[in-house]
């Protein structure tokens, strides 16, 4: 029993409890808080794996930017409780539990089969020279800007596309277009329904006659 084991168990328990919180809560803001706790616990686990840079980025990007966006949208739309459940959901709930157990069992069997966990490379955690250890800012930067420079550039293009797409989608006047489409659709629906009703009445009259 080392100190890392204690840390691992504590963070793992926190992550699992908070993850269950996400899927069992009805109020979206509680779900968001659960996810934030999971992300922070995962950052702690990354630290036990000596991935310092990823741990910091996890908090800054995930917890500090993406989740703030989620919470912001939940507040903006001001959704409190989920509305009435539909029938479909009850069936799904019945399916979900055995599916959960089956997936879990499968994964554990696979892990058990390949359980010859390799010893960690000793040089990965160099305490005397932290800059040289695996997961430091220096080592990640070296890899990112030499071997993996093309994926890095592709990511930046992706983010640019996301910015443009988000602006296009959230623009105010796009509502008008949607409304027009919707009106057209409902009109069509109404017309067909009216026509069907008229047909039904006609057939009734014919039957009566």
């Amino acid at each position, binding site marked *: 029993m080392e100190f890392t084991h204690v840390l691992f168990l504590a963070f793992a328990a926190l992550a699992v409890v908070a993850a269950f919180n996400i899927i069992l809560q009805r109020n979206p803001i509680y779900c968001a808080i659960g996810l934030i706790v999971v992300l922070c616990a995962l950052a702690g686990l990354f630290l036990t794996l000596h991935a310092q840079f990823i741990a910091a980025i996890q908090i800054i990007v995930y917890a500090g930017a993406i989740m703030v966006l989620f919470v912001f949208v939940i507040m903006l739309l001001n959704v409190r409780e989920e509305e009435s459940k539909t029938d479909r959901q009850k069936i799904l709930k019945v399916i979900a539990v055995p599916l959960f157990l089956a997936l879990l069992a499968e994964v554990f069997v696979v892990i058990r089969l390949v359980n010859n966990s390799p010893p960690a490379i000793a040089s990965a955690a160099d305490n005397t020279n932290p800059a040289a250890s695996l997961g430091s800012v220096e080592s990640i930067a070296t890899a990112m800007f030499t071997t993996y420079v093309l994926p890095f550039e592709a990511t930046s293009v*992706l983010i640019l596309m996301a910015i443009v797409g988000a602006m296009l989608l959230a623009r105010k006047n796009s509502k008008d277009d949607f409304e027009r489409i919707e009106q057209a659709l409902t009109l069509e629906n109404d017309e067909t329904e009216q026509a069907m009703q008229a047909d039904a009445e006609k057939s009734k009259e014919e039957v009566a006659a």
Partner: protein
Amino acid sequence: MVPLSWYLALSAVLFTIGVVGVIIQRNVIVLFMCVELMLNAVNLTLVSFSRYLGDITGQLFVFIVMAVAAAEAAVGLAIIISLFRNRETLNVDEADLLKL
């Protein structure tokens, strides 16, 4: 030293919880959060393999997954906002305009 299989097991549990969340929750935002949870479970696997194999590539994958998640969150939340403007609901079962 914590064995590699512990990290893999935790990651599997988190991923499964994410899958179940996608199945039983009906709120779009919460569904989205469950997808993020699954991404994070995979990230944990990548980082632990990176550590145990002594190869930095896994951590770079995590970096790129995070960038993709950020882009996905921006676009996805924009879609959710425009959905809410039009349908006044966040329930995925009621967003069935294409079904007629």
